[in-house]
């Protein structure tokens, strides 16, 4: 049955229409969780607000379990679901550059659009920066190309690399997340918190 678009169950235009509605839900959840506030987002790095950790990991785990169960029931063909390719060097370097941008700017791309949507001027300026950064990459691409393409490992799953089943890895991930949630709850009690 699923995924619907790759299986041609829905047309390209229906897919785009659904993208818009899925985007509305995405924006709604991000904003109502407090992701439109840079001070809430940055809180994770100082322990005063750990909403990012809780929402992010609960989200990833929910979607992962959902996909595994739907595949088990035959509702979705995981072979047709896109797995991000792994270019090890650029995954690390890109992540490091993004991490620096995160602690300086207080947003990531998705959350900055939510912030801008409710009138945060700092989020709008961050978005201007995003465009400048992407233009910068586009015009200097030849400088990056070698690093960008380095250490291509295909589309491996972590579970594969660790030699365990997806389900078992999922279980470990849930246990790890639970551990982090306990630390997060402790940190929020230890460091005072304000709502923004």
């Amino acid at each position: 049955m699923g995924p619907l678009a790759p299986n041609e169950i829905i047309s390209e235009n229906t897919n785009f229409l659904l993208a818009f509605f899925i985007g509305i839900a995405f924006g709604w959840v991000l904003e109502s969780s407090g992701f439109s506030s840079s001070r809430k987002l940055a809180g994770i790095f100082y322990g005063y607000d750990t909403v990012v950790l809780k929402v992010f990991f609960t989200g990833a785990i929910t979607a992962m379990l959902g996909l595994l169960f739907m595949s088990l029931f035959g509702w979705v063909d995981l072979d047709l679901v896109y797995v991000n390719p792994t270019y090890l060097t650029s995954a690390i370097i890109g992540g490091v550059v993004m991490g620096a941008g995160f602690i300086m700017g207080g947003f990531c791309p998705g959350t900055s659009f939510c912030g801008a949507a409710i009138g945060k001027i700092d989020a709008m300026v961050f978005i201007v920066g995003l465009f400048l950064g992407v233009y910068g990459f586009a015009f200097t691409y030849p400088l990056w190309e070698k690093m960008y393409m380095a250490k291509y490992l295909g589309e491996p799953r972590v579970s594969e690399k660790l030699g365990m089943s997806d389900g078992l890895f999922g279980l470990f991930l849930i246990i790890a997340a639970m551990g982090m949630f306990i630390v997060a709850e402790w940190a929020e009690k230890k460091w005072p918190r304000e709502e923004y």
Partner: protein
Amino acid sequence: MSNNTTKERSRRYLNPYLGGVLLGLVLLAANFVSGRGLGASGAIKSVVATTIETVDKDAVSTMPFMEEYAGSHSGSPMKSWLVFQMLGVIVGGFLSGAVAGRLKLKVEHSPKITSRRRLIFALAGGILFGLGSQIGRGCTSGSALSGMAVLSLGGFVTMMAIFGTAFVLAYFFRKNWI
């Protein structure tokens, strides 16, 4: 009194674990419908590619970035799933903020720093995040969150690099936040 207001305001935000489950269901829906996860920086890339193409029609053959882009995207760059999804994000964020009474034009910053300082750092952070999202083939949404949901090795690596770096650098930028 101020404590009460704080509580009242905090109640307006979703419980983070409930928010996480809902986010997961949205991501699951994206995968079920389109066979791909959510994203944000991809939409910016589409806009950038469109403007470059508009200004320079030959860019696809003369500019390596555009060649690479055309190789992975067919048709008009603006007719992209992520562009429609990001338009939705703006609408959804606005609606949620409107319902919760959070619509307000302002620069949010710690009382210890000026608006000007906040905006300079926001711009610098945005530039770095934009650049990093291109190097890393996706941002927190497309690479880290969506990648983790499909257990992509690259997704986990990017996620750890983003959060690890921000934690390491947090000390140097603490004045901006605490």
